[in-house]
């Protein structure tokens, strides 16, 4: 095979998985950089940005001092990039593509060419998003939620955002179809649904969310494009006043319509960010506690229920829009109900630790840290899900703290755990434990340094979208000094990633060579060679048991791979 066919336009799920993962990691890094610039403005409002301030140009930061418009661009693009180009490509595209077919014993994904197209759609979407920074007026600046009417009248960056999103949505649709068909059709003999590793279940439910929740956002994107390009007023009410003048449009539209269509996607999207992470953590916890997951079946039922319910909670993001108390009551009820399966999942993972002799290796440390961090994120969500306390907390830093605990020290820690855990499968070498621990400990301290003070600021009423972090607001005076601590934590977090980057590249070349099953794991991916060749398995796989048969009494080894017969 030529170089291009093998590494660039490859149809092998493993190469595509790595392409997704690397793209996702680079976008995570880029999104993180945007945030570090924002954190300067929040900690030292009105002071020139050091080092890079002079490069940004007069349209963004004259003499290095950031303009509010540019701050808004950074905020909108940080959110968009982290969610759609960072976490989803890494968690679903990367881990899903690489690990899922191996775990079900398949030779590849069901539609290899579609898989390739789906990656290149994502790539194009990413290029459009990055390019939008160079348009006149800059990138999208109406928040990652792109609420109209502001988004309808924003500069051309918003149009680029919409086109970029359409590519990203297409990519997700093709990818999710592929995952579902692969899981249903390409399981090896004996691998019934209740023998699937939990990671596969998590990806399976995630794919349904992507498949069914994304199209309404595509619809909304088309409508907003029509508003911006064809002069329609889907989201523009009659008599809208812009810069002191009544906007000359036909009117009669509804800004609320966008919010409904957007959150119909974006709430399930939250679970798209979380479920694959839970799947990764479940695999690693079972492996390093050396015992079966506690309550595997209840976890599977919970994840299915969670998937269904995630479609009927979206308007809890909209309690303050004036949609009415009847609607609010309905959505706060469903929101309270959806916390039940989430708590079941987390409890099962916690109880799995009980009585285990835990191996504290790097993947396990990240997986263990996921549990309390995700717990904080989840529990702080309860007051937001009830419409009365949400009146005070809506759109404050409390909300930012809440969802960042879920996705930053939550999901991203789980993704790091997954990288450390499956790195030996992809490269045949192990990552350094010392550097891994140097990565883990500062990261968890700095993560909390960034996000814990946000709860305090939020209770004090600091709004999430202030370009100066509340410096000009008297009521925020007591809590604005926290901004410096948070910003220094953010920059510290950047330094804490250096051991990871060194580890990643060094281990690729000179990590300790390991066999095909370095963690003594039971699931099928460890029965293939490391790295697996094109076509994955060198012998036929037939599954005879469940996914987590660790420490089975009377066996010589403390693990029984899914395809191995027990000793009599």
């Amino acid at each position: 095979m030529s170089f291009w066919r093998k590494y660039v336009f490859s149809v092998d799920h493993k190469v595509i998985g790595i392409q997704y993962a690397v793209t996702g990691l680079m976008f995570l890094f880029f999104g993180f950089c945007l945030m570090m610039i924002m954190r300067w403005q929040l900690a030292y409002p009105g002071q020139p940005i050091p080092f890079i301030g002079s490069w940004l140009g007069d349209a963004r930061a004259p003499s290095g001092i950031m303009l509010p418009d540019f701050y808004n661009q950074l905020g909108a693009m940080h959110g968009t990039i982290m969610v759609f180009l960072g976490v989803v490509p890494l968690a679903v595209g990367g881990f899903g593509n690489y690990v899922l077919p191996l775990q079900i014993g398949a030779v590849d994904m069901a539609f290899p060419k579609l898989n390739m197209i789906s990656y290149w759609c994502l790539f194009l979407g990413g290029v459009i998003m990055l390019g939008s920074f160079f348009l006149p007026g800059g990138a999208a600046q109406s928040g990652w939620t792109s609420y109209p009417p502001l988004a309808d009248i924003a500069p051309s960056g918003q149009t680029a955002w919409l086109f970029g999103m359409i590519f990203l949505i297409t990519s997700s649709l093709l990818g999710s179809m592929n995952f579902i068909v692969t899981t249903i059709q390409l399981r090896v003999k004996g691998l019934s649904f209740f023998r699937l590793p939990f990671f596969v279940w998590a990806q399976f439910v995630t794919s349904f969310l992507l498949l069914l929740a994304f199209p309404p956002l595509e619809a909304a994107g088309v409508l907003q494009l029509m508003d911006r390009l064809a002069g329609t007023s889907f989201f523009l009410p009659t008599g809208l006043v812009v810069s002191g003048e009544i906007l000359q449009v036909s009117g009669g539209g509804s800004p609320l319509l966008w919010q409904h269509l957007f959150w119909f996607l974006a709430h399930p999207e939250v679970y798209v960010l979380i479920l694959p992470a839970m799947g990764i953590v479940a695999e690693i916890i079972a492996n390093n506690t050396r015992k079966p997951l506690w309550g595997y079946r209840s976890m599977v039922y919970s994840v299915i229920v969670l998937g269904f319910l995630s479609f009927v909670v979206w308007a809890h993001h909209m309690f303050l829009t004036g949609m009415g108390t009847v609607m609010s009551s309905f959505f706060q009820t469903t929101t309270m109900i959806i916390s039940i399966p989430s708590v079941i999942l987390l409890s099962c993972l916690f109880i799995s630790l009980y009585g285990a002799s835990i191996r504290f290796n790097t993947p396990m440390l990240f997986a263990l840290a996921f549990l309390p961090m995700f717990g904080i994120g989840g529990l702080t969500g309860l007051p937001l899900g009830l419409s009365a306390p949400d009146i005070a907390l809506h759109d404050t830093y409390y909300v930012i703290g809440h969802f960042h605990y879920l996705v930053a020290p939550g999901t991203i820690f789980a993704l790091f755990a997954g990288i450390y855990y499956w790195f030996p499968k992809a490269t045949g070498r192990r990552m350094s434990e010392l550097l891994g621990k140097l990565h883990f400990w500062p990261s968890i301290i700095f993560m909390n340094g960034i996000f814990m003070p946000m709860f305090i600021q939020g209770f004090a009423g600091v709004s999430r979208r202030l370009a100066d972090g509340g410096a000009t607001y008297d009521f925020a005076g007591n809590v604005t000094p926290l901004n410096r601590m948070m910003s220094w934590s953010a920059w510290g977090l950047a330094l804490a990633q250096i051991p990871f980057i060194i580890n990643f590249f060094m281990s690729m070349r000179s990590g300790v060579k390991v066999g095909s099953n370095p963690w003594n794991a039971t699931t099928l991916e460890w029965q293939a060679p490391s790295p697996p060749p094109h076509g994955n398995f060198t012998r036929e796989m037939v599954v005879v048991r469940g996914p987590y048969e660790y420490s089975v009494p009377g066996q010589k080894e403390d693990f029984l791979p899914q395809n191995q017969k027990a000793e009599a």
Partner: protein
Amino acid sequence: MLELPYIVEPRPDTGLTNGKLGIWLFLASEVMLFGGLFAAYIMLRVGGPTWPVGADILNVPMATFNTVVLITSSITMVMAWAALMRRNYGTYQLYMFATVGLGLVFLTVKYFEYSHKLHDGLYPSTSTFLAIYFTLTGLHMLHVIAGMVVITYFALAGRSMFRKNPQWLTNRVEHTGLFWHFVDLVWIFLFPVLYLM
């Protein structure tokens, strides 16, 4: 390329080929796409200050004609598939071209409808009703064109596939047909919602 299982023969325990499951999932996502737009239509109509009767602005006879055309094209699509089941390539090709031809008739009528509206000064920006009309029918038209491209491809390039593996071609044509019927079905919803109600 690797040999992937269940492309031609269905998997025994699920009773499906990969492609068939795939196209049904794709259609599910399409239902959500048009479902989202129909929901938008309802919300705009209920919340809007005024809403015209479709028949006062749009050309009902032309749309009725187009409805008949599309339903007929669904029938010819099934006939093409049935011909392949009987392994009769000539008849298959004939019905495929008939389907594409009917698609062309639909597009031509739509072209006259659109240019009439624009000629009368009725643009998407004129009113929210026209905005949703142009958006919904435009998106539907893109689906018609996409379907026609695929059908033309299988009508022209089908012969070598037919020689190599006729059952595989039959499956692919069946899946294309499912998509085409879906596009037809969307129009059957669009027609009363936009023109009659």
